[in-house]
């Protein structure tokens, strides 16, 4: 399959805790992207990591990429109730951007 597979499917944490989501894949990629979606409508791009990069940061977000294990993780630190959303990894290889099924994150205040 060309799509990534996120783990866990659902995650519930308390406000202030860290949230970690993982994405595994099977194909070669040029880059891997993480997106967020609220209420089942438009997706918002969070961060892009290229295949020759191992780690990127953006605010409270930290993404790692291990191409030898074909996996990526998204860490959200000091979570807030407003972080409640679905998070998707998307793979860019020789095919158009392909999305996984997502992780549904609930942050409880």
């Amino acid at each position: 399959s060309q799509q990534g597979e996120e783990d866990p499917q659902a995650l519930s944490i308390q406000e202030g805790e860290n949230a970690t989501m993982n994405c595994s894949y099977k194909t070669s990629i040029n880059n891997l992207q993480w997106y967020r979606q609220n209420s089942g409508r438009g997706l918002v791009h969070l961060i892009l990591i290229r295949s020759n990069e191992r780690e990127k940061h953006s605010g409270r977000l930290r993404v790692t990429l291990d191409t030898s294990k074909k996996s990526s993780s998204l860490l959200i630190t000091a979570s807030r109730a407003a972080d409640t959303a679905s998070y998707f990894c998307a793979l860019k290889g020789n095919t158009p951007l392909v999305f996984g099924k997502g992780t549904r994150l609930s942050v409880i205040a």
Partner: protein
Amino acid sequence: GAGVSQTPSNKVTEKGKYVELRCDPISGHTALYWYRQSLGQGPEFLIYFQGTGAADDSGLPNDRFFAVRPEGSVSTLKIQRTERGDSAVYLCASSPDRGNTEAFFGQGTRLTVV
């Protein structure tokens, strides 16, 4: 406009009817994608345009689905003889290049076939 615009935001149609969904990408973006998303699932790739041409239409589920982008800007997704299983949110995204940077998504069109 500043972002990707999709119209209509909601569409209810009867089984067997024809529908058109419109996407206005960000000005200057050469890449345009259509996705379909069912409840609880991730976006499912349908078709990708680079300029005016469909560079990859491998995701279109059958020949009832067709999309055009005649001038390399606005795109229309056309669905003939709609079926209840076509009910979903149809998402459009654009990107300034061949996908090596982020994609910008519209808010989607929720299609309901009754």
